[in-house]
């Protein structure tokens, strides 16, 4: 204590992100290896422009890594490699389907998807470069709501919207088809996070209790009813079951995160169930999906041309053909599945990589989602918690809805598998989601005494703001009656409350797990 080094120096080195480099090399090996094997298997040689395209992917990953090092050095190291691997596998499969020259595979466009990947990565990492703090987004809470509603309404406008395969979810901008719902997902996540972080107390506390369920007050129900109506409108007007499920699920999940009231889940599931049942009765295309789900192998379902089970059954055959270890890149017949490059890419991968490969892919998604949820737990501000949790949940739900539809766990709906399915909007939107998750995880893991948040700046104690006088400075000694320490005065009291980690937070507000930094339940949960 006698000789202190008073030199001002950053106490903590930035992480070198070695793990990320290592994982990125593996991920690029996976993406490029798949690409090479497709060429070798189908054409007996490496694909055209193999080195150029491979380098393009590698350079993208490298640039992303450098941007992370410079602008978000503490961000999670697993997210980027996992996404690069998923994206690489998806591109390889799309290219594999493209060069199969099967009749239904004409729209498969690996080069276009590669461009979309590059664009997505550039936009995402530009965003990461510009957006220094995710809390900046909170200012645009209601703007985000308006933007989200506009985006989902756009396809309904005549002239702008396009109807493809019976779903009116595309818009046509300068020759490109966009699926605005993918971007609306992000806008809604921002809106819900901003809205809920402000209103979670009223939603959690006020209202009657029925059968042990804490119900919200009717007037607090306004926003959830609005979103429920909007998601039903998507279902009815745009005939898009998947997007409707995604929006509604996102909102219910974020409500639950914000309030920790299971009544919201019960309420949400009931509302969605009622909506879906009604829709199945009223609209033939929704009912048909359920028939296809339940009886795909019936001849009547299989042969019905629009909306029959042909695609689903082909997907099942494909995965069955793949078996445990798959046929290998380029050796199966996944091109027999309609839309194998977009909606059914999971089944196509199942044929060529087998159950082993599919499990690895699902685990990759799980890793990304887990890192997102972990960031949500760790980050200090409520907005960041909700946003990261919402985005991670949306990705999990999307993966579940797609894979569940293909494997017949739930009825088939029209969502895209993030990073794999062909589609520029989906790629772009999901890369932006990844940028936001990385930004939040950087903020969650950053040591807080670096001069990045708040006014406390390292190495500048002189710049300490003037003390704010809150009430009397109370030298009467009577104020802290309940906290009066024992008369041991100067003795260290290190072990005093080791025994009551669960006792003290008892008096806190029920919603405090959002703003709290170490919620009691989190201590155990982290390691489980």
């Amino acid at each position, binding site marked *: 204590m006698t000789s202190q080094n008073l030199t001002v120096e950053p106490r903590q080195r930035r992480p070198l992100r070695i793990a990320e480099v290592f994982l990125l090399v593996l991920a690029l090996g996976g993406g490029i*290896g798949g690409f090479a094997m497709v060429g*070798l298997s189908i054409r007996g040689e490496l694909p055209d422009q193999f080195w150029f395209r491979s380098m393009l992917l590698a350079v993208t990953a490298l640039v992303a890594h450098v941007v992370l090092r410079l602008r978000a050095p503490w961000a999670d190291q697993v997210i980027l490699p996992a996404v690069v691997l998923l994206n690489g596998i998806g591109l390889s499969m799309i290219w594999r389907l493209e060069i199969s020259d099967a009749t239904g595979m004409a729209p498969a466009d690996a080069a276009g998807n590669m461009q979309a990947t590059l664009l997505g990565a550039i936009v995402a990492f530009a965003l990461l470069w510009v957006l220094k703090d995710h809390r900046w987004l909170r200012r645009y809470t209601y703007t985000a709501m308006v933007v989200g509603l506009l985006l989902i309404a756009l396809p309904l406008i005549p002239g702008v919207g396009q109807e493809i395969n019976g779903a009116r979810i595309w818009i046509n901008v300068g020759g490109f088809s966009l699926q605005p719902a993918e971007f609306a997902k992000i806008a809604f996540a921002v809106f819900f996070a901003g809205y809920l972080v402000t209103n979670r107390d009223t939603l959690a506390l006020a209202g009657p209790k029925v059968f042990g369920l804490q119900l919200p007050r009717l007037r607090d129900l306004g926003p959830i009813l609005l979103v429920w109506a909007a998601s039903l409108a998507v279902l009815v007007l745009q005939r898009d079951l998947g997007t409707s499920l995604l929006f509604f699920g996102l909102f219910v999940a974020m409500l639950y995160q914000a309030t920790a009231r299971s009544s919201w889940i019960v309420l949400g599931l009931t509302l969605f169930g009622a909506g879906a049942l009604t829709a199945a009765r009223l609209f033939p295309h929704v009912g048909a999906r359920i028939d296809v789900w339940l009886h795909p192998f019936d001849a009547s379902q299989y042969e019905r041309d629009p909306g029959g089970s042909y695609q689903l059954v082909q997907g099942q055959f494909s995965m069955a053909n793949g078996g445990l270890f798959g046929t*290998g890149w380029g050796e199966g017949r996944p091109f027999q599945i309609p839309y194998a490059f977009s909606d059914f890419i999971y089944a196509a991968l199942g044929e060529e990589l087998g159950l082993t490969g599919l499990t690895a892919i699902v685990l990759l998604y799980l890793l990304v989602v887990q890192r997102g949820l972990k960031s949500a*737990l760790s980050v200090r501000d409520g907005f960041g918690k909700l946003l990261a949790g919402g985005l991670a949940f949306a990705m999990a739900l999307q993966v579940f809805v797609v894979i569940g539809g293909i494997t017949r766990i739930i009825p088939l709906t029209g969502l895209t598998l993030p990073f794999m399915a062909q589609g520029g909007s989906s790629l772009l939107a999901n890369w932006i989601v990844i940028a936001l998750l990385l930004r939040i995880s950087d903020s*969650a893991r950053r*040591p807080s005494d670096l001069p990045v948040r708040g006014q406390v700046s390292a190495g500048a*104690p002189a710049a300490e703001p003037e003390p*704010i006088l809150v009430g009397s400075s109370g030298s009467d000694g009577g104020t802290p009656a309940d906290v009066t320490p024992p008369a041991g005065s100067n003795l260290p009291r290190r072990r005093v409350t080791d025994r009551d980690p669960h006792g003290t937070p008892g008096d806190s507000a029920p919603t405090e797990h959002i703003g709290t*930094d170490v919620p009691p339940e989190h201590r155990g949960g982290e390691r489980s």
Partner: protein
Amino acid sequence: MSELTFTLLRLGYLVLLWVFVLSAVAVLRRDLALRSPRSRKRADDGGAPAAAPAAVASSPAPARSSGPQRLVVTAGPLSGTTLPLSTSSILLGRAPSCTLVLDDDYSSSRHARIFPQGDQWYVEDLGSTNGTFIGDQQVTSPIPLAPGVGVQIGRSVVELQG
């Protein structure tokens, strides 16, 4: 390409996928292992305000060989949290901008600060509602703080440790 080569490549590819997955899991495991309960420091990354990846937190400025090395919360909701000391002052309170954000209903938003001057650390009350105490003595002006002496802020007790 012979059948055998292709089979090897095919299985090799699956192995590569799984090597990636398992390496990623290993990275996550290392993340957790570094803050295992052994050391009783589950202070970082798990969301404690002083969140610092443990890999880095465990290497504080090597230059300082004597004097307190860290600030430890020994009582209160955040009990167990440690904060490596640097040469800058530490602001304690409930405001999110504080260095150590106390989740403590009895502390003020900007409650106290602990700062180094010369070769000594001092504690100063920033006009908090409930006061800052060392033992049963209220801190009214900046006073020197020796390692191992508990400072009571609301329900929390923090101390410097060597």
